[in-house]
Structures are given as structure tokens and as C-alpha cells.
């Protein structure tokens, strides 16, 4: 089978002014300097040649890169649909005009809650007001706006108010993503996992509001796999449609793949992107169904959920090559269920806030 990447997530930097405890960035950052402007430009051109159609510009906070408009321009000229995934800190009128001129297609702004006190507590930084201003400027500059709110125990009860905020900001899209437990979020999972009752109430609100706002705002609500019987079809399969390039240039089949300690990920500094996508050992390790253990190998869902998430298998079972423990057929599911049940009544521990890399080696 000839695999083709459709979407490139470009993590331009790990630097970020926020400290969200739900961040899926790694808790141990890779060594090495951030890719230079010229290196990123080569990545975007090579990605377009491979068939990539979308480039998500993310981080960390991508606005921390002074060369962001230049990078957007290159991606745009290569034909990629460019989407800025940002906290909005640093997004002012000048920057918006530069990004517009560079050909940026759309902007996604994260919010932590609907009101300032809770939002700033979750972000570990006083950024809520800055975001409100930036979201309004984004609309005024003519960009389509996606609002992204990562949901967890501490904000999901305010879902109706969060949706009202996105409506007030005239977002076309609202992504309500229940926390995925990787990186910093995995460390904080006892503090972040909502209760079963919270999820049920949140799902009902999302369904009701999706109907009410049909044709005005698209609402995506992703239920957490810790509460599911079936694993998520993570990344639509390993090395099948998506690729991520991290700030140090390592190419990953998914943004959190560094959770899998036994894999070595090749860098765009050493290889062409096409070689890494098609030939590198890491991208081929979990492609297709050949690698699958039982029960996945004989499962009727094997080409639907692809055995679930490899990172989750590594984190929860200590082995990236076993069935995702979120699956009811996994021998590790009982242990995960134990954690979920304990969370129903436990008081949530304090957040361990995301830290930036200890030093910021600039390109």
C-alpha cells in the first residue's frame, strides 16, 4: 500500500507563555536547537510534494517565532492550507496584517474557560482578556475563527457558558476536546479526568447546542476514550494520513509519539521528509495490520480503529505494541477502569503546571 500524508502539524517551538496542565507536549523536551527558517521552509515544500494539503502551525506558541509570517508565506506558496493554532498571546493587529498578507487561511484560538478567573487559573497565566481581544481582532481581520477548549474536570461543568462565549466571539467552529492523557496531561490525569456524571451532562449540552447552532457554528465534541469500550482510531492509523515535525526537527507519526521510548525518530536535519515518511523504521513500525498482536489481529474492527493508540499502550501497559488499554478486549483495561472508578469520588489533586524547556536554544 502506498501511504500519503494529508496533514502536517508543524510544532514550531516548545516555548509558550501559558502553563496549561493539560498540555500534551512532552514533559522531557528533546535536545537540539529549533529548526531554522530555511529548515522549516524546506519541510513545507517537501510536505507539499508528498501530497500534504494542510499545514497546522502549532507549538508551544507559534507566535513566539519572529519568522512566523515568512513560514506561513512559504507554506502558502507551496499550496498548503495554513491554520495557525495559537493561544493568541502576541496576536495583535500588526501581526494579523502580516499573517493575512502571507496568505494564512484560518486561526484557531485556545480558551481555558468562559470566565477570567477560572481561565487564568487553568492557564497558569493571566491571559484570558488578551485572548478575548485577539479573537475579536481575528474576526475583524477577516479570518475564519475556530475556538478550541480542552475539557476536563475543572471546566466541563461550564460547557453551556463556554459555548456561549464561542458564539459571542462569532467562531465558525468550536472544538470541545476532552483532555487526551499524554505528556503533561498524563502527569495531571487524576486532576483532569472528569467524572462519569460530568461527561454525561457535557455530552447532552454539546448535542443540544450543536442542534441549536446548526449552520452557524460547527461544534465538535470528542468523548474521552477512558470512558469508552472501544479505542479511538488514533490518527486514522499510524503513518497513514498525518505527520508531525517537532521543534527539533524530529518527524513523528503523531504529536505524542515520543512517549514511545524504544522508537528512534529521524530528523529532517538528516533525511528528506519523503524518506522518513515512506522508509524510516519508526513510520513503518505500526503501519497496516501486520504488527498487530491478538486480539487486534483477528478483530473485526482492526481496520476501523487500527488497534487504538500506540502511545496510550506505551503509557498504560508499558508496551507500545499491545492493544490500546482503552479497549474492553485489552487485558490492561481492568487497571484503567480501576483508575477511572477511583476518580469518581476522589478529590482532585493540585495541578502540576506545564514548564517551558529549561533553556531556549534559538536557531
Amino acid at each position: 500500500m502506498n501511504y500519503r500524508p494529508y496533514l502536517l502539524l508543524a510544532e514550531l517551538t516548545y516555548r509558550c507563555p501559558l502553563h496549561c496542565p493539560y498540555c500534551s507536549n512532552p514533559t522531557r523536551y528533546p535536545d537540539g536547537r529549533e529548526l531554522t527558517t530555511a529548515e522549516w521552509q524546506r519541510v513545507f515544500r517537501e510536505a507539499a510534494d508528498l501530497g500534504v494539503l494542510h499545514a497546522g502551525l502549532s507549538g508551544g506558541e507559534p507566535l513566539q517565532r519572529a519568522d512566523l509570517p515568512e513560514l506561513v508565506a512559504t507554506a502558502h506558496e507551496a499550496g498548503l492550507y495554513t491554520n495557525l493554532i495559537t493561544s493568541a498571546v502576541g496576536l495583535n493587529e500588526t501581526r494579523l496584517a502580516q499573517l493575512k498578507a502571507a496568505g494564512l487561511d484560518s486561526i484557531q484560538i485556545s480558551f481555558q474557560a468562559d470566565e477570567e478567573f477560572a481561565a487564568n487559573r487553568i492557564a497558569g497565566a493571566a491571559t484570558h482578556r488578551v485572548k478575548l481581544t485577539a479573537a475579536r481582532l481575528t474576526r475583524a481581520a477577516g479570518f475564519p475563527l475556530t475556538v478550541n477548549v480542552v475539557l476536563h474536570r475543572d471546566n466541563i461543568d461550564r460547557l453551556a457558558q463556554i459555548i456561549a462565549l464561542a458564539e459571542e466571539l462569532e467562531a465558525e467552529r468550536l472544538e470541545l476536546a476532552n483532555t487526551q492523557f499524554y505528556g503533561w496531561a498524563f502527569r495531571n490525569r487524576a486532576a483532569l479526568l472528569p467524572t462519569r456524571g460530568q461527561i454525561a451532562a457535557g455530552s447532552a449540552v454539546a448535542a443540544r447546542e450543536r442542534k441549536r447552532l446548526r449552520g452557524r457554528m460547527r461544534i465538535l465534541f470528542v468523548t474521552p476514550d477512558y470512558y469508552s469500550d472501544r479505542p479511538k482510531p488514533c490518527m486514522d492509523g499510524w503513518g497513514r494520513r498525518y505527520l508531525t515535525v517537532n521543534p527539533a526537527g524530529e518527524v513523528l507519526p503523531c504529536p505524542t509519539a515520543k512517549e514511545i521510548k524504544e522508537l528512534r525518530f529521524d530528523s529532517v536535519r538528516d533525511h528528506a521528509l519523503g524518506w522518513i515518511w515512506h522508509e524510516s523504521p519508526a513510520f513503518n513500525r505500526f503501519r497496516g495490520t501486520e504488527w498487530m498482536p491478538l486480539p487486534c489481529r483477528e478483530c473485526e474492527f482492526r481496520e476501523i480503529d487500527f488497534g487504538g493508540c500506540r502511545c496510550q499502550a506505551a503509557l498504560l501497559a508499558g508496551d507500545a505494541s499491545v492493544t490500546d488499554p482503552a479497549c474492553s478486549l485489552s487485558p490492561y483495561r481492568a487497571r484503567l477502569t480501576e483508575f477511572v472508578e477511583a476518580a469518581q469520588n476522589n478529590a482532585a489533586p493540585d495541578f502540576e503546571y506545564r514548564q517551558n524547556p529549561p533553556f531556549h536554544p534559538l536557531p
Partner: protein
Amino acid sequence: MNAITDESRAVLARGVRLRADPLTGEPLLLFPEGILPLDESTHDILLRCNGELSFAGIVRALSEEYEAEPEVLRADVAACLTQLREEMLVAW
């Protein structure tokens, strides 16, 4: 949501791009986090959603192109655009 009328001028919604797949030539709509491959008739309709043609004008142009009666095409074009509008890919 107002229903489409003869005077409605449908355009691609903000942030939606129509382009050919560089590898296959197949027509696509690109939008935030999304890719929609287009069949030929939807593509023909969207090529005319340029803000200059009204809905009646699009139906007329397509009827000339396909050598079909406008009244035969009308309901299909309306259904197609209404569906795309619900998905927020076109606006009028």
C-alpha cells in the same frame, strides 16, 4: 437559516478553498481541519459560486452546459447548496 431564492448569491464560506488535488487532479474543498473530495456535479456548481451569479444564473449556466431543462436541475442544485451551507462551506 434563510432558504435559497433565485436572487441568492452563493459564495464559498470564509476560509474555504476550492482546489485541485496536486497529485490526482481531483477537485477538493479545503477548510479548517477538513478535506472534502468533490464529485463532478458539485464541482461544477461550486465553480459558479463566485458572487457574480445568482442562484437562477447558476441553474441557467448549468442547464446550458448540460443541455438540460433548468427546471430539471433546479431542485438538485438547491439541495446541493443547502447541504453545503448547513456544513458552513458556502454562504449567501
